[in-house]
């Protein structure tokens, strides 16, 4: 499942990058687009792989540690 997801995502991201490069987007746009896509890939990978993490729990931990 993870491998199938990874392959499909990487292909989709590559297709997207090819598209925006072909539209002659500035390098900054391409870089940010790639970075966000990569972040999204990691988040979805964590879901597919079943990693147990939660954004709200991290925020709660930070707030508790800083004593706010």
């Amino acid at each position: 499942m993870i491998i199938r997801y990874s392959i499909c995502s990487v292909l989709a991201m590559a297709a997207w990058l090819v598209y925006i490069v072909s539209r002659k987007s500035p390098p900054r746009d391409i870089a940010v687009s790639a970075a966000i896509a990569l972040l999204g890939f990691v988040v979805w990978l964590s879901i597919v792989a079943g990693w147990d993490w939660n954004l709200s729990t991290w925020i709660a931990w930070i707030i508790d540690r800083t004593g706010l």
Partner: protein
Amino acid sequence: MERATISQWQFFIITLNFTLGTTFFIRPGVLIATAKQDAWIVPWWVGAAGLATAWMWLNLYRLHPGRSIIQICTSTAGKAVGGFFALLYAFFFIQITAWVTRNLGDFMKTTLMPETPISVFHLMFLVIAAYAACKGVETIARVNESLTLLLGFTFVMVVLFSLTEWEWKRFEPALQMDFWKTVKDTRSLYGFPYMEMISLAMLFPYVKGNPGKSLLPGIAAATGLLSLIIFFTIGILGVYRASHLIYPLYIIAEELRAAPFIEHVEAAIAVVWLSSLFLKLSIAFYCSTIALCDLFGLKNRSRIALPLVFLVSGLAITIMENNVVNAQWDMRYTFTYFSLFGVVFPVVLLVWTGVRNRFIPGHKEGAS
């Protein structure tokens, strides 16, 4: 930044829809469980605090006319520190988008379509929101204008047909709440939805004239409507049932009976109300997109819209485990976390701007 202008009326409607979008679905049950029959009074003092905070944002904007909150961060505190604040804000806006997406998916899955995978709802709505973001703020504003009328009409119809179930004794005994305890227990309302509205600071530069002329009345109107919705929920459903339900307004629509043969119309009504959630999602998504564009100096919004769909749809799954965990998190952390972005950072920026204007000779923020 795109060359676009939205009118005062359009910004008023955007403020109204952004404030009420998910609030009117999710908040009534929680507030009624806390404040019981006096829950309809709670939005008034929280709304007043929200207005005061919004007035502070407008003052910050007055010192930095024509700039979004992201640009204010970088211009005030420099590229490094300001950039860090701006990055936090961008992350916050993306998080709000994820939250709204998750609320939408949860609602659909819990009430109307339990067999459908939640990500399907997320992706479908996000793709349309991304398209709206690519089209720009004027398009979003016009869609807001046209859909708000339908939303208002549907809501009025539901209330009118449900009035046969009204009982005044559901408000008795009135004014019995312990005021300070209720203020403490309902402080999360200040965070969501009032502090979320810092996202609208991204749209200030697009508003024709002074954005305060529509932002403040929008917040006041949303507060009044929220109070009215809670009032009707108590009068029609009662404190006991409403406090046990996640979506009490949906239950009112579910139990509505206009005539012996016109009943169980909740699916049709919910679809109309979903558009309110969608409007909030499109505004939040647009704010996230332009926050990233302003932060990184990007020329074209559409380059990041689709990757953002990918990211937000994933975050929407991981942002919370389930409604129970979310409710506990909301009680404990919403006020603190949202106030950081809605109060603390803007105050820091205000003070920083004031110090710079006062002590750095020749440095005064002018028109951009």
